[in-house]
């Protein structure tokens, strides 16, 4: 089967900062990819290139057959198949949980409202926030908000899910309830790319781990290789610092 995402030698500058250097990466259907690395290594930028929130300065990004050329049209088309979950949830505060979830299905997929609501309720039940459908985001805990954000993305029935440090803004006791949902999604065969610092989670779900530093992919491979037999010095140093605590 053809790769869902093909990234071919992309470069990205933020002003004078070379944020991505000749990065190439492919994601196959049903593959679970985890990107890790120190902060400022370009993980989030790479993730955001996949759904066109960032446009790269050179190189190619092809998502589900659509080449992202930097114009709004191709980006919008590709985004129909790409769900994204942000570190800071970014739920729409003036809409109820249910309204958050049905907005895109109604306007993007042209789903009738009743049908969209039924779909949203079943997805909300799946991420165990079904009881909060009528509430506003501000009435929910961080963990609940992030699960709603996951549901909102799933309601568009994407082919691939992107997670940008989904648990970094959460209190420790809420991290697991969100990770469980993501693990459940992974087990159901969803293709996903996840930027995270949760190494135990990475080892549990990832088919492949990509380690980035300084805007480059330093090393990638199955978790066993990355964690138990790291080759690059920078990866060893990173693992040493992150696994110490």
């Amino acid at each position, binding site marked *: 089967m053809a790769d869902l995402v093909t990234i071919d030698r992309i470069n990205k500058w933020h002003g004078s900062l070379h944020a991505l250097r000749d990065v190439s990466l492919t994601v196959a259907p049903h593959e679970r990819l985890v990107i890790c690395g120190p902060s400022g290594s370009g993980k989030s930028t790479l993730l955001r290139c996949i759904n066109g929130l960032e446009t790269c300065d050179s190189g190619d990004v092809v998502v589900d057959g659509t080449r992202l050329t930097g114009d709004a049209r191709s980006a*919008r088309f590709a*985004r129909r198949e790409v769900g994204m979950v*942000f570190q800071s949830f*970014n739920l729409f*505060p*003036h809409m109820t949980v249910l309204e958050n979830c049905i*907005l*895109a299905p109604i306007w993007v997929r042209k789903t009738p409202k009743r049908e969209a609501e039924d779909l949203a309720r079943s997805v909300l039940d799946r991420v165990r926030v079904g009881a909060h459908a009528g509430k506003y*985001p501000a009435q929910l805990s961080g963990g609940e908000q992030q699960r709603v954000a996951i549901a909102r993305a799933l309601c*568009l029935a994407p082919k691939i899910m992107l997670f940008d440090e989904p648990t970094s803004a959460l209190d420790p006791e809420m991290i697991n309830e969100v990770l469980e949902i993501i693990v459940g999604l992974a087990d159901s065969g969803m293709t996903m790319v996840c930027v995270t610092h949760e190494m135990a989670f990475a080892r549990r779900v990832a088919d492949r781990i990509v380690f980035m530093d300084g805007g480059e992919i330093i090393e990638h491979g199955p978790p066993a290789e990355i964690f138990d037999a790291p080759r690059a010095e920078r990866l060893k140093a990173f693992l040493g610092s992150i696994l110490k605590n």
Partner: protein
Amino acid sequence: MALDAEVRAAAGRPVSAPRVTRKSHFRIQVWATWTVLALLLAWGCRALQLDFGYVAQKLPFLLGLRLGPDGFIQGAVLTLFVTAVSMVCALGIAMITAAGRLSDNPVAFAFATFYASLFRGTPLLVQVLIIYLALPQIGVVLGGLTSGLIALSLNYGAYLAETIRSGMMAIPLGQREAAMALSLPRWLILWKVTGPQALRLIIPPAGALFVSMLKDSALVSILGLWELNFLAQSYARSSFRYMEMLLAAALIYWALSIVFEIVQFRLERRFGRGVAVVGRR
């Protein structure tokens, strides 16, 4: 909330009354204080020995319940008409200007900033007079009403544009990105996501601007329009009942402002959904 009460009870401190009662207590006290202040104000006016008979006689004209001698609306009705039309025009101008101000296009940006600077930097009175008196010299002859409407719209449009811009800029970038990630088109993001959130921030200062516009509409009286302020002053001059007429006009302006404030309050509540769900009055 219930948990909070339990914790306090356990700590031996008095448990506060339920939220609903506390809210109505607050309201009662607000109304009581308002009544006392209004009575004080009325008592102060008593010393002026006002002729209420004359006020009652002129009130229908001040309110604009009768048409003027030229067959056109007058008094408070004309004031409201001028304000309402200028409000709609100013809103349109302001939205376009705010869009220009937020635009990447240098020409659009320059147009917007030049206009806003010019009309915020010169007195409204001067603008009214220039539009009415100077434009005929270059061949554009406008009536008093049209000139007044244009001047008010352009002046308030410039202020309102800044209000709208600041409201839009206050919406976190993450909101737009989340909407974009959901594949929503740009116009829909503005209409459903960023716009309604910006409105919550724009409504209070915009409401203040419109109340101020209501009173600034008195400036068009110099163009010979028989609006509230013009009528009050001419009746005052002919009868020497200055205090009666000025106070009556002031009270009518105030009453209209209160209506504006109520509308603003309702809109605030409408667009405040989901924000500060806990503890809102």
